[in-house]
């Protein structure tokens, strides 16, 4: 069986989403670096893998996939039984809740947290730019409203989709990890259940391993 190849970077948020799944299920894979600064993600070779010119992309034998959430689902289905069941596709009630909170991460949480990470970390560190405080402030208010809902949810269930850890929780890791390196990390202190949830699942071995691979970018 040929080795799974993941094209991406170990400190890139969407690549990390897939790395976490591969590590959780104990899959053997090779991480093939794609250099964004040299424009490798827009090279013909990479566009053949991902026509949107983004990372990650995954090759498994003859199959090529892109979009980290699609790749995550593929990996978790392929290695089902080998690692923890993070999709719960055998139980429609449970899998529906995984899907709900996966989309909450994509459409409610991420749009609030990623501009804060971009303005306060990526823009100054990678592009030498100045953070736009008004963007940060507007999105902090949005994030707090989202965290209000998360706090209520996580006081009723241990994890987002229910009392089981799932892809929905995992999907939050990379942007939140970067957020914790911004000056605004203490926002989470006002949400005790959210904070406990974060500390719980980030102590899983797969998360420690992927965090270590971020190489000082956190």
């Amino acid at each position, binding site marked *: 069986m040929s080795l799974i190849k993941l094209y991406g970077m170990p400190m890139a948020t969407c690549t990390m989403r897939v790395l976490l799944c591969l590590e959780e299920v104990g899959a053997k894979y090779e991480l093939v670096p794609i250099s964004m600064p040299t424009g490798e993600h827009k090279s013909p070779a990479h566009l053949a893998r991902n026509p949107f010119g983004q990372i990650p992309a995954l090759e498994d034998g003859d199959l090529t996939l*892109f979009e980290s*959430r699609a790749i995550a689902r593929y990996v978790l289905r392929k290695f089902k039984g080998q690692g923890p069941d993070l999709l719960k596709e055998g139980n429609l009630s449970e899998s*529906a809740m995984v899907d*709900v909170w996966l989309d909450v991460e*994509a*459409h409610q949480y991420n749009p609030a947290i990623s501009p804060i990470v971009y303005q306060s970390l990526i823009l100054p560190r990678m592009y030498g730019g100045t953070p736009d405080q008004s963007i940060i402030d507007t999105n902090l208010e949005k994030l707090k409203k*989202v965290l209000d809902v998360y706090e209520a949810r996580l006081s009723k269930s241990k994890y987002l989709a229910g009392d089981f850890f799932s892809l929905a929780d995992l999907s939050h890791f990379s942007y939140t990890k970067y957020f914790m390196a911004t000056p605004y990390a203490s926002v989470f202190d006002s949400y005790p259940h959210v904070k406990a949830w974060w500390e719980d699942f980030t102590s899983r071995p797969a998360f420690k391993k992927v965090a270590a691979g971020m190489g000082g970018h956190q």
Partner: protein
Amino acid sequence: MAIKVYGLTLSNNALRAIAVLNEKGLDYELCPVDLQSGAHKKPEFLALNPFGQIPVVQDGDEIIFESRAITRYIATKYKESGADLLPDNSAKFETWLQVESSQFYPAISAINFELLIKPMIGMTTDMSNVEKQAEKLSAVLDVYEAHLAKNKYVAGDVFTLADLNHMPEVFLLLKSPKAELITSKPHVKAWWDDISARPAWKKTAASIPV
């Protein structure tokens, strides 16, 4: 008890849920949510969706929000009813389902909101935002054009949920001054002409007040 859909037939996201129910030939009750009066922020609605957004679907004891979670749930639970929208274990299907959500939806929904919704609710269209989003959408649709030149539907040879999830936004865009973003691309237009001719879609489209 019939499936309940909390939403409006003007809402892009609620239409996704309605479209899948029509494809499955399922009976449902549309429970309108009066957004103008703030009904979606009242406690009774927040008990259904704590994020205060439509649609929400109630199916027996299940209460589901986020339109794409809803469409996947309906397509899975009622797989044997109406058209089968889920190919078994297709990597291309999962990829293009996600492409709609991450690449296509942000730009097209922004354009539709600016051009169609804002005038209805007494807000002013931001034309510079429209142009910015139109540029993004055009680049995304270039990829779709190449993809649909080799694939009849986004996931391959058959119509699936991956096509259906696109439909409300395309319908709305075609009613706007930016319709040419779709109509100028021959394979994208041919794809739309095919999928919008489906009887279930015609039923959905007839309910859209635009």
